[in-house]
């Protein structure tokens, strides 16, 4: 998208409009603020470096988001062993797998426990977790999610439906 001067201004504007949201998006995938900031920073650096190849702001945002999700997935792969150890230390009573007793109190359906939701989210397969976060936090369309994850819109629907059901099944709704 043109010169370095334009790139610097462009990435600065992109930073102002998307930095906090992108860190929060990655945080929802990783539950680690420093790691989320590192991943988001790397995504911005990658976008800055490739600025000349991005056709417009929309493409830059899509590229940024894609780098961030890929970065988060890679971190999860690296940390999977650590996470297992942490869960073991946390004890069975707190493990996400035990939170499987849904309530029938429909009047309180919207009052989800955020901590339980985060714990349940962490147990989902990568794709389902990513689709859930991009859809319900970033409010992206199916097409945008498909582009960010490099999958088909049909797969987005499938992951969203399965992920949502799995979340509900694993959560204790108060």
């Amino acid at each position: 998208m043109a010169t370095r001067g334009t790139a610097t201004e462009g990435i600065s504007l992109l930073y102002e409009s998307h930095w906090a949201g992108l860190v929060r998006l990655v945080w929802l995938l990783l539950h680690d603020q420093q790691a989320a900031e590192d991943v988001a920073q790397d995504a911005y650096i990658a976008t800055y470096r490739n600025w000349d190849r991005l056709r417009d702001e929309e493409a830059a945002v899509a590229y940024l988001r894609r780098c961030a999700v890929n970065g988060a997935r890679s971190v999860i792969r690296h940390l999977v062993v650590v996470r297992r150890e942490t869960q073991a230390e946390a004890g069975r009573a707190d493990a996400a797998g035990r939170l499987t007793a849904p309530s029938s109190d429909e009047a309180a359906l919207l009052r989800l426990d955020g901590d339980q939701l985060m714990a349940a989210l962490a147990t989902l397969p990568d794709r389902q977790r990513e689709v859930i976060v991009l859809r319900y936090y970033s409010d992206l369309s199916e097409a945008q999610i498909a582009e960010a994850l490099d999958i088909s819109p049909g797969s987005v629907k499938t992951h969203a439906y399965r992920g949502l059901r799995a979340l509900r099944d694993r959560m204790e709704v108060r």
Partner: protein
Amino acid sequence: MNDDLDDLGQLRRFEEGVRMSLHDKADRIHPEHRLGAILESEAPAKRRSAYWLIGAAAVFVLVAALSVGYLLQNHTTASMSSGAAAPQKDQAVPSAGLTPADASSQPERSSATVASGSWAMPLYEVVTGTPTQAWLLNRTFVSVPDPGDRGQRAQAAVTALLPNGGHTDIYGYQQPWAPDTTAVVSVTDSQIGIVLNQAGPSGLTADQQRIAVQSLVWTVTAAAQLTVPVRVEVAGGGGAFDTTPAGVYSRPDSSTSYTDLVPIWIDSPTQGATVTAPVTVTGQACVFEAQFPWQLLKGTTVVASGTATASGGCPVQSPYSISLGARPSGTYTIRVQEISMKDGSVSYQTQVTFTVA
């Protein structure tokens, strides 16, 4: 059929709950700003290719310098009683410490992150403040060999902050602690402990004492990357200063951090850095109406000036960026100032000297 419809209805309500809860949890995250590190890290590929020879030479020099510096640094470190790394003269902006990207889909990492084994150590150093507050904290980053885990990083940063740690020669620097002050740092998930070998000197005002303690708090939490309370104690008991007791201290929240931090700081260029044109100055500001003047000096001559605008106004710090454009080679000083809304006087200023290659 009815069961399916009921299930669909419940799932839609559950969707709304998920949406609300995700926003509720995520919106509590207030990320640190890293625009300076991003802009300093890399130029777009098209421009970079034109300067690949210069870049290669710079990388060669950097690697050589780091190698020599690392050897010297290790020698210095080994002789320090705390085992913490002392700062180098050169400063650096922080770089990501992870390798998160899929190799297939993400471009190669920036040169700023290639120097494996080094760490951009955050220091919140005491500097001359404003007419209403004598001392405030200015953030700088100092490149050191990575001490290791978060506990070792926290120890290294606190040691660097104390008189024998070697200060970073920043504008308005103040050293609140007595010579030969040392500290032992311990880090857990819920609290950080700092035990000083002696109390701070007498004669400081209550607010100066507070800022000195907050300097430890901001630095150690940034180094450990933990937002937890910090217990500050003195070996053998007693207060941290005359009228500042030992106890648990924390960073203020972001809406009142101006009580601890300078109104404007410069993230990049860093003090003494060598940069290539075009030059962009970045940093954080918390000033009235988000606007403040800047001047670019060559020696004592102002060669450019203007007004910068941060992305938001006080009380929260917000990033700003100043494009200086292409500048002839030479040494320059960028000066930024906060103007008093009461009488138009300069209430605070800071500056950084850098070289355009």
